[in-house]
């Protein structure tokens, strides 16, 4: 069955550095991949969507890459700030390219001043 893996260990970085989070998937080929931010006790907030025919997408300090050969997406936050501290979730459309999203378990990012 399809599987999505995100680094379960928290990522701790210093303010101003670039944070890089990884999302790996197996056993199917999604049409698109999404990244969400989730703060404790809140719902996920949509950040970026990248399609299978796109290699890279940017939005302000955020950058996402999508390598369908490696079955991997990288999510970068440049010039990180303490306000970026949150859990970041990777999500893919389900097998058969349905609208249902399959989420990873998320990676918690902590940015220290």
């Amino acid at each position, binding site marked *: 069955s399809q599987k999505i893996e995100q680094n379960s260990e928290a990522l701790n970085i210093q303010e101003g550095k670039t944070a890089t989070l990884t999302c790996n998937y197996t056993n199917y080929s999604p049409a698109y991949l999404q990244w969400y931010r989730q703060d404790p006790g809140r719902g996920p907030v949509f950040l970026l969507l990248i399609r299978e025919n796109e290699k890279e997408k940017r939005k302000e300090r955020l950058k996402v890459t999508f390598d369908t050969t490696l079955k991997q997406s990288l999510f970068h936050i440049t010039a990180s700030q303490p306000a970026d501290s949150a859990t970041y*979730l990777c999500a893919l459309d389900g097998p058969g390219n349905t609208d249902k*999203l399959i989420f990873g378990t998320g990676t918690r990012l902590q940015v220290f001043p």
Partner: protein
Amino acid sequence: DAGVTQSPTHLIKTRGQQVTLRCSPKSGHDTVSWYQQALGQGPQFIFQYYEEEERQRGNFPDRFSGHQFPNYSSELNVNALLLGDSALYLCASSGTGGYGYTFGSGTRLTVV
């Protein structure tokens, strides 16, 4: 512009009881999906409603049912509650265009 509104925010129920959670989608969105998120896990897809019909369903038992109304709002019903149903229940709405989902803040359900 109001986003997705869910009610109630918190709920405590006893095993065996039934619960109804409510969701109003973002203005302009016509599709509503429900997710269950256990602590420390990613959201798990329950089902999706479009044009008042269940369009897709995840691996959840029939105890989980839903409804969508003509104004696109939706309800999630869970019967015969189990301790394992304790979780954050998230509603997400979307429209055409494939620009991601808008999630509500969720309903925290605790079954005791």
